[in-house]
């Protein structure tokens, strides 16, 4: 028993224990990426398909490194240039891949629920690498790991998630993960970009960024999709920066120093200023490093790896 079930579609269905299991399992995997030979045999012989229906650089490459460092065989399928662009349905695409005897599918898709939909229809393990506006669990896991690295705990932390919560799968997964592990979570951004009844997820709404900064131990600054302006959610990017931007001036007025997270890719000068992004309190690159470790942990656990991957670590290939 891995303790995670067949698929990882989100953090909402997971218990605090399951989330801690993933984070604890990620710890030893961090070290693998620091080795000269970055490879362990844990998933040798496993076949994994990275099925990406939306453009992604960071997440796809992070998964690919995680798979390769676990010795799995992986194939990348991009939606354009495949049968998907010829009108094949998601189910047919996945079933055809499965007919080639694969073990896991990592899926990124523009439709909320796509990962769960797939997981219910194929026998392979399914990992959600972002589905619409629903969840992006491995992003939240790497955020949790990064917070735990810096603070030594999650419980009791005050985390403000700032920006376009309405369209953000990162926000939803973070809300579930953080609240389950005992953090206090606030969301902050324009009212036009706050989902209806967001308080029902156990968060408080702080309308002004200054107040969020004064309250929080850490900010998770969401990417503002530039098309939100043309869709009428905000008047302009310039005004967004002036009213909601995370700037060094605003941070300087905070009673304590805040940790700054950002899932990337950043719009410098919009949701976050460069001197903050490049400053001493930003952990944006450590987040990326941790991303490989948590994805290795998820792959390892779903593939049936025992908690505490000691033996997997020992059999390093040379």
């Amino acid at each position, binding site marked *: 028993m891995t303790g995670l079930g067949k698929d990882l579609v989100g953090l909402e269905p997971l218990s605090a224990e399951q989330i801690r299991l993933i984070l604890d399992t990620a710890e030893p995997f961090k070290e693998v990426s620091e080795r000269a030979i970055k490879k362990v045999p844990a998933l040798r012989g496993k076949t994994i398909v990275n099925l990406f229906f939306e453009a992604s650089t960071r997440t796809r490459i992070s998964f690919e490194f995680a798979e390769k460092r676990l010795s799995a065989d992986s194939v990348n399928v991009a939606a354009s240039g495949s049968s998907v662009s010829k009108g094949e349905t998601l189910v047919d695409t996945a079933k055809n891949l499965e007919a080639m005897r694969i073990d896991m599918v990592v899926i990124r898709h523009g*439709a*909320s629920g796509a990962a769960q939909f797939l997981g219910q229809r194929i026998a392979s393990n399914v990992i959600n690498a972002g589905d*619409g*506006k629903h969840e992006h669990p491995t992003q939240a896991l790497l955020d949790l790991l990064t917070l735990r690295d810096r603070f030594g705990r999650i419980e009791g932390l005050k985390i403000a998630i700032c920006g376009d919560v309405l369209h953000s*799968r990162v926000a939803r997964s973070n809300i579930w993960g953080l609240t389950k592990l005992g953090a206090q979570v606030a969301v902050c951004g324009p009212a036009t970009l706050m989902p*209806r009844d967001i308080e*029902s997820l156990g968060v408080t709404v702080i309308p002004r960024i200054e107040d969020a900064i004064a309250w929080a131990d850490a900010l998770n600054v969401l990417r503002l999709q530039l098309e939100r302006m043309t869709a009428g959610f905000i008047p302009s990017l310039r005004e967004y920066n002036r009213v909601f931007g995370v700037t060094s001036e605003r941070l300087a007025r905070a009673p304590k120093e805040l940790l700054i997270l950002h899932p990337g890719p950043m719009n410098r000068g919009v949701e976050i200023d460069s001197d903050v992004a490049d400053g001493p309190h930003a952990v944006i690159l450590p987040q990326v490093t941790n991303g490989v470790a948590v994805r290795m942990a998820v792959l390892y656990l779903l593939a049936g790896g025992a908690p505490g991957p000691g033996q997997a670590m020992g059999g390093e290939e040379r």
Partner: protein
Amino acid sequence: MSGAILIRGGRVIDPLRGGDGIADVLVSGGRVEAVGRNIPAGEGVRLIDAAGKVVAPGLIDLHTHLREPGQEDLETVASGAMAAAAGGFTAVCAMPNTDPVTDNQAAVGFIVSQAQRAGKARVYPIGAVSLGQKGQQLAEFGELVGAGAVAVSDDGKPVVSSHLMRTALEYAKTFGIPVADHCEDPTLAQGGAMHEGIVSTRLGLKGIPAAAEEIMVARDIILAELTGGHVHLCHMSTRGSVELIRRAKDRGLRVTAEACPHHFSLTHERCEGYDTNAKMNPPLREPADREAIREGLRDGTIDAIATDHAPHHYDAKEREFDDAPNGIIGLETALGLAITELVEPGLLALPELIRRMSTTPAGIFNLPGGTLAVGAPADVVVFDPAVEWEVRPAAFYSKSRNTPFAGRRLRGRADLTIVRGEVVFERA
């Protein structure tokens, strides 16, 4: 014409005459010949034992999508009319969002002739409000009515232009027909896949706020007052809509409204797990909305129960939630849901239910039927109000299977349906 049929010993309910008691019903020559105790069975009269059953005027559905012409793989006039008969309906009104759109007299005539050929439930075409349902130019209401249309609607889409809605209501007065509107502000609803609320927030699906419906309900009521026309509000789903209609009726405006079984049975929580059989427009709403719809049906604010029977192919529903089409089929579950959800809990007595599913719908669209008065058309349903059964889509007469009620145990089901004096459905 067929031979006479004597339905004996059933509980005969006729809301129009206020009748409710054990009696026999004799139909002959396509008409109700007699209703009373101990009617003698004449020579060659078919006898039907209705002891323990309800005998009522056949159900009438104001809102059905039959998909013919254009999508005959989903439903045809014949298959839909058969499904209707199996559900206890003796007449259905077919929405004009076919392909091509039912916006001219030839298209209306085609549906009429297909219905005659099928010979099951009656099918009354509803003509389009605008040519091609494009929301610009009025369709030829006079010719539509001449060919057999009983109302006009651009259902599937709202009549966006208030000017067009105004002229439609005014022009329809000439022909004594209602304008049935699908109330939805498209700028608020655009891209929405379900009700906007707690569940859409959790699932990350774009929501359709209740306000999208209520804004158009309010507009239509205001235009009904301006024009004196008859607006019929389709598939009402929100508490706010019910309140608006209640106030309009208090003021004596010519506003009628219908609600669908799914809106008095289910809530947006049914969308959990991204079940596309819970995707419909208007969407499943919140528990308070469902309660308001039930209360509206109880106090008569909502005049009629209509199915919004919307067949879709399995493949089309077997998709990502955002990409799946809206709608569920309803002809074969409507009576069972109404009895289970409204009659069993004591919200509606059976005669009131018959009123909402037969008598009042007939009155709204000015259709024959809705009563068992002597001389009325012999459109009759015999149903068992107590039988418990399980919804098995594979057994449906409809060509489609898209229902969120599969596996649900319901109480009440039609056993026999008579249209124009002929048995068109009889449960084996």
